[in-house]
């Protein structure tokens, strides 16, 4: 399952990290609640593209999605964000998630991508089902998958 964390942001109780995949990148959100783990996984995905702290919260968009289980819901959440980034040409640096029985209500704050300021390294093509996992471990939720870049 995954690999050793190689980049982390431990600045708060909920946090994210990347884990190694040979060609691409694993994203892992960790938090006291499942919703926070989902928020952090989204932040980890942004961090593949740019430093999330450089993204200004100028605009908020709403995302609603549903899936038959938690793991497919995580993939659906991340893929909804990929779609919004792609069609709006935006990056997001802050997320809020509510989970209600197989449905996700999310908000994402961000701004239009600015190559001069964001230096975006790579675009995310989609969230895969490889190493896809949502689980409660020792009182902490983790939400992770590998994204194709």
């Amino acid at each position, binding site marked *: 399952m995954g690999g050793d964390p*190689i*980049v982390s942001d431990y600045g708060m109780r909920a946090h994210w990290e*990347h884990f*190694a*995949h*040979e*060609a*691409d*990148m694993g994203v892992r959100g960790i938090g006291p609640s499942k919703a926070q783990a989902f928020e952090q996984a989204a932040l980890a995905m942004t961090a*593949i*593209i740019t430093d999330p702290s450089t993204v200004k919260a100028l605009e908020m968009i709403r995302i609603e999605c549903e*899936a*038959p289980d938690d*793991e*497919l819901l995580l*993939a*659906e959440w991340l*893929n909804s964000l*990929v*779609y919004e980034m*792609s*069609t709006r*040409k935006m990056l997001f640096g802050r997320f809020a998630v509510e989970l209600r029985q197989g449905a996700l209500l999310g908000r994402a704050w961000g701004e*239009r*991508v600015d*190559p001069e300021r*964001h*230096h*975006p*390294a*790579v*675009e995310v*093509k*989609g*969230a*895969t*089902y*490889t190493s*896809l996992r949502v689980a409660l471990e020792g009182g902490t939720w983790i939400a992770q998958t*590998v994204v*194709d*870049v």
Partner: protein
Amino acid sequence: MDLALLTRRREHEWEIPAQGAMRVPAVIFASEALVRQMDHKVFEQAVNVAMLPGIVTASFVMPDAHWGYGFPIGGVAAFDADEGGVVSAGGVGFDVSCGVRCLHTGLKSAALRAAQEALADVLYAEIPVGVGSTGGIHLGVAETDAMLAGGASWAVQNGWGDAQDLQRIEERGQMSGADPHSVSARAKQRQQDEMGTLGSGNHYLEVQHVTAIFDSELARQFGLELDDVVVMIHCGSRGLGHQIGTDFLKRMAMAAGAYGIALPDRELACAPIRSELGQSYLGAMRAAINCALANRQILTHLVRRSFAHVLPEAKLPILYDVSHNTCKLEQHGGRSLYVHRKGATRAFGPGHPELPEALRDAGQPVLIGGSMGTGSYILAGTHSSQRQAFSSACHGAGRAMSRHQASRTWRGREVIEALAARGITVRSPSMRGVAEEAPEAYKDVNAVVDAAEAAGLARKVARVEPLICIKG
């Protein structure tokens, strides 16, 4: 990978015997050194593919294989619809029909070097590249459907290129059986401003020169001589293909149970070829192939326009255009098979009816992209490649190091300066992107290509090295 798990059939051919739920063996084409370098995940993924319904002969692994999603990248598998065979969205991947196109220029490197910086600037200005970039083309709904049905042929009809270009593209530039109505509104929306864009990550446009000829007769038939300048374009079906992968991965994963398919890995999501979902995916995936072919055709037009500004004497006909991530219906051994190639190149041998007249004696050009510092290869399909792995060969060097390890190891500016000292001009909007694609982050493309030739998958024709690299 642990060699003890494998049976060595030949010097460059290794077998994982069918065991457990495997319906066929898995076969790896590689040197001993390359097999040792392969992650154990490649073993697991090749074994999982061998469990899928209707798989024929073997789950094949190319010399550049690495850990992918469901299928290994560098995986080849063929399925027979008459035996309950499946089509897998995971077996094609997100970047449907990602591929390489090679253009001649008619120039030698001295002429190019005299205008190298100016040409790099014009190419970088003309070709939309990087995250969030858009092209100058906006497609409405009806025009998107026409593009998805017509591929490069649609692009030529709209003034991006010449009719003779189509002869040098797989499927003559237009994949038949495409069904734009099977493509979701979301997928079409992702593409409406992305036609004629290069993308990011490992996608690139390079101006290269031929630094070695390995087979002079094949090189002559391909129109290549030492020191010739060529252009290689590496990109795919952009946001549309990515969204089709996302859409069908989910639908197939959720439907697998209803079709009675036990998935060893959810990423192997698939559906019977003879099912509504399987047919819908094939129609959408073929439309994405057309999107990739149209995109590379528009990029070709932009390259020609750039050269016309700086080196007007250049003529840029296509040598060939290959796709890496596809599932295609082909005839092999008298059977109609759905051949998945995930990070693998089709490599038809001499005489194959799909090849254009001018290349029929030579065999299909197989274009192998390396890293921006090491060089790329032009190979040719052979008679033996038709027997080995459904006419398939490798597609690139394959990563040796993760993106984060690479970006922690090198600085983009230093990579660009080191390449400049070797006469290679790089233009990119992202220094971190350049660091993640540093030459040393990739495996040795020479070893991969040597193994492909030794295994009989393709024959080496020429090696090319970059002069200009436009990187996403």
